[in-house]
């Protein structure tokens, strides 16, 4: 999941070298949209499963809504806040991005209020090995976790293939490497950048729903910590590098989980960021270096 958000960062950074601070908050709005849609289907934390509509339908509709909403919003953000600053000094779009982040956080706060919002339980939580196969093991294989991985992994493979193989995917790489030359070969650079924001936003939207389903809660300032972690993952893997972002996300998730399990949840952040610092000292460009 962190990997999904990290992908959004890395896509945008890879193409226009902008760290889109608003990305985490976009993800937060994705969780809100998902929650609203799911709620509209009659699911709520109070009543549990609705009897009229199957959970699958609610999940699919919420996914579509969240993906479309975040994708379109991200395109709008680029138009409004970044496009005109593309030739300005680096700091200007960065500050604009931080401003956008504040705006999105405030929208979230006004929308759902300052308190944490519960998500209804839509995907059952059981241990596949124990409950389905009746095995007695120490290893747990949660259905929920499988569910998340089952969505995230194909999505990432799809994205990688998309960027490698399709015409617009190649154009994205061309724009990332030499924007002016991309224009000279006939690529509409503005369009490709918009498309990149669309794709990044859609990933954030998907991540929003998955987060809600998995953690069963969300809050207006969720984007800050999620964004920070995702950014860390992107840097860890080598910012601008799609495979790197995924790898970074998984490494980060793994370190976090292991820490919680064996050291204690209090130490999670400490360990995660220590690893980041250590890796950057030895590999300043991240695990895989920069390559889109």
């Amino acid at each position: 999941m962190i990997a999904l958000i990290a992908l959004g960062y890395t896509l945008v950074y890879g193409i226009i070298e902008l760290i889109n601070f608003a990305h985490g908050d976009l993800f937060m709005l994705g969780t809100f949209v998902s929650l609203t849609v799911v709620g509209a289907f009659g699911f709520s934390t109070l009543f549990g499963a609705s009897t009229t509509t199957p959970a699958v339908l609610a999940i699919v509709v919420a996914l579509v809504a969240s993906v479309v909403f975040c994708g379109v919003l991200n395109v709008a953000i680029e138009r409004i806040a970044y496009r005109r600053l593309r030739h300005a000094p680096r700091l200007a779009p960065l500050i604009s991005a931080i401003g956008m982040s504040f705006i999105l956080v405030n929208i979230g706060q006004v929308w759902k209020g300052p308190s944490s919002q519960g998500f209804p339980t839509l995907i059952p939580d059981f241990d596949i090995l124990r409950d389905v196969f009746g095995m007695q093991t120490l290893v747990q294989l949660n259905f929920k976790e499988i569910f998340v991985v089952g969505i995230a992994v194909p999505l990432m493979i799809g994205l990688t293939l998309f960027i490698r193989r399709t015409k617009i995917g190649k154009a994205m790489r061309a724009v990332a490497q030499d924007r002016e030359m991309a224009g000279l070969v006939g690529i509409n650079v503005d369009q490709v950048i918009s498309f990149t924001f669309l794709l990044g936003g859609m990933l954030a939207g998907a991540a929003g729903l998955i987060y809600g389903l998995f953690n069963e809660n969300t809050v207006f300032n969720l984007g800050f910590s999620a964004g920070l972690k995702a950014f860390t993952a992107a840097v860890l893997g080598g910012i601008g590098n799609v495979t790197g972002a995924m790898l970074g996300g998984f490494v980060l998730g793994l370190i976090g989980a292991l820490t919680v399990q064996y050291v204690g949840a209090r130490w999670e952040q400490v360990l995660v960021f220590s690893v980041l610092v250590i890796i950057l000292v030895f590999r300043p460009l991240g695990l895989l270096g920069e390559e889109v």
Partner: protein
Amino acid sequence: MALLELHDVSTYYGSIQALKGISLTVDKGEIVTLIGSNGAGKSTTLRTISGLLRPRSGTVTLEGKDISGKPAHEITALGVAQSPEGRRIFGRLTVRENLEMGAYGRTETDLTADFDRVFELFPRLKERVDQKGGTLSGGEQQMLAIGRALMAKPRILLLDEPSMGLAPILVELIFKIIRDINTQGTTVLLVEQNALVALSVAHRGYVLQTGSIVLADSAKALASNEMVRKAYLGEG
């Protein structure tokens, strides 16, 4: 009507005027060269034609149609392709992908004939289709830059210093190929510092000096012009 015409074009970098009202024409089927020393404004001229820079005044017309101020990708789609100074290969794309990008603005999906044409002109590229552009030698990158521009099926090909940094034997090869491309029907506007070779393949030429055109004549006449010989052919 000229295929390409610049009329009284002035281009600025901020407050610095790089082109001081230049006019030139390129007719269909010609090779026209634009020569001049460092900083004369040759690249600026090509960048203005391609839409990377906006002329502050004056017009650029393609077959009578005003294209000044249009964005680069639209101008490419209208049939103007450029192989820029420094080649600007997409280093992390393969040779094949670089060539595909060259045809980006075209609507046809079957590019087999275009690939064949480029590979016929530059057999070396064929051997290296799956190699990353950045790993090619300088000469091969120049071939790729020209090939990439040809993939757009341009009506006019703009070449910015194709001889730069190449061994004499490679320069000879590249210029022979430029002549072949022209014979096959593509009009060429060639920018060069290497006036000697440029004038040997071109039909006509212009001499650019600090943003102004100071001489315009047939290539033959320019090659024997006293001033050109002194300033650009290393004589005197």
